[in-house]
């Protein structure tokens, strides 16, 4: 009973927002396991001009509502040098539907054209300070490394599915024209990340 109370307390006290990368920061590479069993790093993409890193998951209805739009983004922008890298920030111990097997299943069902990576212990999630799913971070590859250029929503309709402004596409277009994305930070309603309960 006490343990349950403690568990609930810890769960609710889990970090919701920590200082992560800011716009203009160079992002460290990572090496996370993909649903195909192989590890994926940003360094695996020598020809990329940048990356659309999206924290997304199996269970959040908003994130699921975006799956087709994420696939479309990857189809459109991978050939242009900006592949999608999806990372599941959620802990399978909190929600079994976020397990690696369920990720494999989801990726197969939806025909994901991009890697869908496991982030055990939220290591990469915390570096980016992702707070919810879906949460997007656009990186631009430069001589200094992969620079964070945009944080936020994919487009301006997270709930209705009928956007008239496509933030990520506009941001990539700006970068392609040698400009900075404007806006470079947007907000959207999404699902809180399911943080691992403290042992």
């Amino acid at each position: 009973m006490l343990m349950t109370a403690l568990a609930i307390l810890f769960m609710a006290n889990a970090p919701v927002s920590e200082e992560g990368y800011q716009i203009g920061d160079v992002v460290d590479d990572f090496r996370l396991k993909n649903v195909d069993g192989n590890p994926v790093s940003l360094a695996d993409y020598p020809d990329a001009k940048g990356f659309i890193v999206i924290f997304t998951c199996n269970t959040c209805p908003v994130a699921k509502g975006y799956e087709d739009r994420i696939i479309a983004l990857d189809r459109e922008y991978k050939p242009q040098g900006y592949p999608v890298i999806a990372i599941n920030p959620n802990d399978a111990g909190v929600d079994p539907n976020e397990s690696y097997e369920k990720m494999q299943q989801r990726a197969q069902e939806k025909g994901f054209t991009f890697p869908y990576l496991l982030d055990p212990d939220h290591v990469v999630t915390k570096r980016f300070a992702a707070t919810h799913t879906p949460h997007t971070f656009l990186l631009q590859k430069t001589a200094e490394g992969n620079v964070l250029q945009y944080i936020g929503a994919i487009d301006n309709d997270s709930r209705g599915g009928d956007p008239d402004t496509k933030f990520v596409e506009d941001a990539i277009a700006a970068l392609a024209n040698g400009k900075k994305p404007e806006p470079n930070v947007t907000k959207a309603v999404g699902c809180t990340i399911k943080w691992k309960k403290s042992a």
Partner: protein
Amino acid sequence: MSGYFIRILAIALLSADRLSAQERVPLVTLDQLEERLAAGGDTTFVVNLWATWCAPCVAEMPHFDQLQRAYRSKPLQVLFVSLDAEKNHGAVVKFVEKKGIKSEVLLLNERDEQYFIPKISMEWSGAIPATLFVNAEKGIRVFKEQEFNYQQLETNYLSILQQKNVP
């Protein structure tokens, strides 16, 4: 206090299906909501931002109803503000009735997240559940992007209750 009882009475007297969607879960713009919070005097508003599709939101809703019940003699007003898309208004009403939600439920009639998210709080990433505590007379506006258990919710409310008015 009386508003709460009148509402309970109204819900009890009118069978659920006789209340229209607009009566059971009114649409509210952010301006309308803010006006109400600003005009609340010493009422402490506990504004819970939720959606029918958000499992942790749904899980914590009974705690808010419990708080409203426990402090019904105090100037406390729980407001459940749904972020469901307006096209799902009917589904929100059905959900509220099925779950037997006692506190007042509103549907936020705003589409532009770049407008309403930072206006509700600059601290808000957009993740839900999230809860805003407002007491106009005391000049309090506290935003929490987290899930609450009952004890945490009560602690937050009591800390506001115990604060003196700003001079």
